[in-house]
């Protein structure tokens, strides 16, 4: 049992929170609010006890994109007010502003979703989607995909080692390396595909596609906070919309 209050929230409550952040960031003008969302997300991550993984994934996934997006806008966004010039490179005020706006949005939205997946197990999320009406087949496909990926990675390494033993070169010129790709991937795909028949038989023998309501061993419960929080999000969001477009 998870003891942390934030981690114990219903997956949908956390998912709506990510959508809420997405909504706020897209309707509010300027980059100040969007940038200030990030420290707020770090605070939530700290409270939930996932700040370490959260920050390392944000750094790995978003930092390079943010830098490149920012540099591109700084130099190439059309504008009049030139701040700095060197040869054909010009930094313009408009580009600087647009770059900040774009990066603040990518940072806020991207990290909101990273935080969501650090705080929610995919299994719980898929279960909550199933409760919302996702067909059991869809849930099965997503979850078995997550299981198959590491298995297939191991198998790919095994096949590559085996092919090296029988003399397939994996080092050297581009052509040599490209040639090693096919003898690794083809057996991998053909052998994994052969396994699907057995899986189909196993599932059918358990009446997987029978048209009845299924029971589940894995149940999710909703607490009081899960009832209240989505309503709070909607109220804040509508208030912001009114403030932005009518006042």
């Amino acid at each position, binding site marked *: 049992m998870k003891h942390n209050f934030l981690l114990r929230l219903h997956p949908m409550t956390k998912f709506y929170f990510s959508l809420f952040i997405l909504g706020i960031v897209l309707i509010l003008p300027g980059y100040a609010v969007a940038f200030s969302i990030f420290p707020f997300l770090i605070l939530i991550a700290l409270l939930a006890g996932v700040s370490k993984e959260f920050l390392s994934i944000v750094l790995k*996934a*978003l930092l*390079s*994109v943010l*830098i*490149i*997006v920012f540099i*591109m*806008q700084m*130099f*190439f*966004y059309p504008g009049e007010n030139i701040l700095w010039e060197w040869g*054909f*490179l010009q930094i313009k005020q408009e580009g600087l502003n*647009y770059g900040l706006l*774009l990066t603040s949005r*990518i940072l806020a*939205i*991207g990290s909101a*979703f*990273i935080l969501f*997946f650090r705080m929610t197990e*995919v299994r719980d999320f898929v279960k909550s989607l199933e409760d919302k009406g996702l067909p059991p*087949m869809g849930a*099965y*496909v*997503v979850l078995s*995909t*997550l*299981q*198959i*990926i590491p*298995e*297939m*990675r191991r198998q*790919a390494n095994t096949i*590559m080692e085996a092919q090296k033993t029988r003399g397939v070169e*994996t080092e050297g010129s*581009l052509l040599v*390396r*490209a040639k*090693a*790709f*096919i003898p*690794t*991937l*083809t057996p*991998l*795909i*053909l052998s*994994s*595909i*052969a396994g*699907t*028949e057995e*899986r*189909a038989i196993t*599932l*059918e023998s358990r009446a*997987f596609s029978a048209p009845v309501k299924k029971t589940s061993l894995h149940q999710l419960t909703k607490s009081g906070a899960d009832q209240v929080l989505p309503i709070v999000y909607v109220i804040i969001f509508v208030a912001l919309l009114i403030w932005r477009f009518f006042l």
Partner: protein
Amino acid sequence: MKRSFKDDFNMMAMLLIPIAVAVNLVGFQLANVLRLPIFLDTIGTILVGVIAGPWVALLAGLITNLINAIFNPVYLPYALTSMAIGVGAGYLSKHGFFKNIPKTIVSGIVITLIAVIVSAPITVLVFGGATGNTSSLITATFLASGQELWTAVFSSSFITEVADKVVSVLIVYFIVKGMSDRYLSKLNYGHLYMKRKNKK
């Protein structure tokens, strides 16, 4: 033979999706390990499109990007591209475009065009023109030489995509050729590629 939307989703086709997603991810990883200059991250999607039809491939493309997005949300908007590639490959297969090598290469180019047309607007509107892969460098070069943003993004992504997609479809062609008739017969579009022609 007329097929409805739902007929495409039989049990075998659905079980193919996890394999396709894993092939997409592992293919990308292998291309990295072998330090190949292309991504090869849509082989699974195209393969499903060819043997199980456009709608199953759409789902495979979507799930690939959703799972990638768990660790890197930058992939999320590009789910549209993966889905379009899957549908494209499915329809090309339906019309017999994966039956021999020249036709396969043509379908590779068609898939490249689909990928570019869908992904370039995402790159421009969501990321302002660059996401930090190899094509960003080419985009920057085009921009510095005075081209418009849209032209620069379209042309740079075409340059990086065309080799990737043509190689991917050729790999798919050889994999489908290596499949047994017994297996192909269980999939919706498999009969197109069976070696012993049945009387249909």
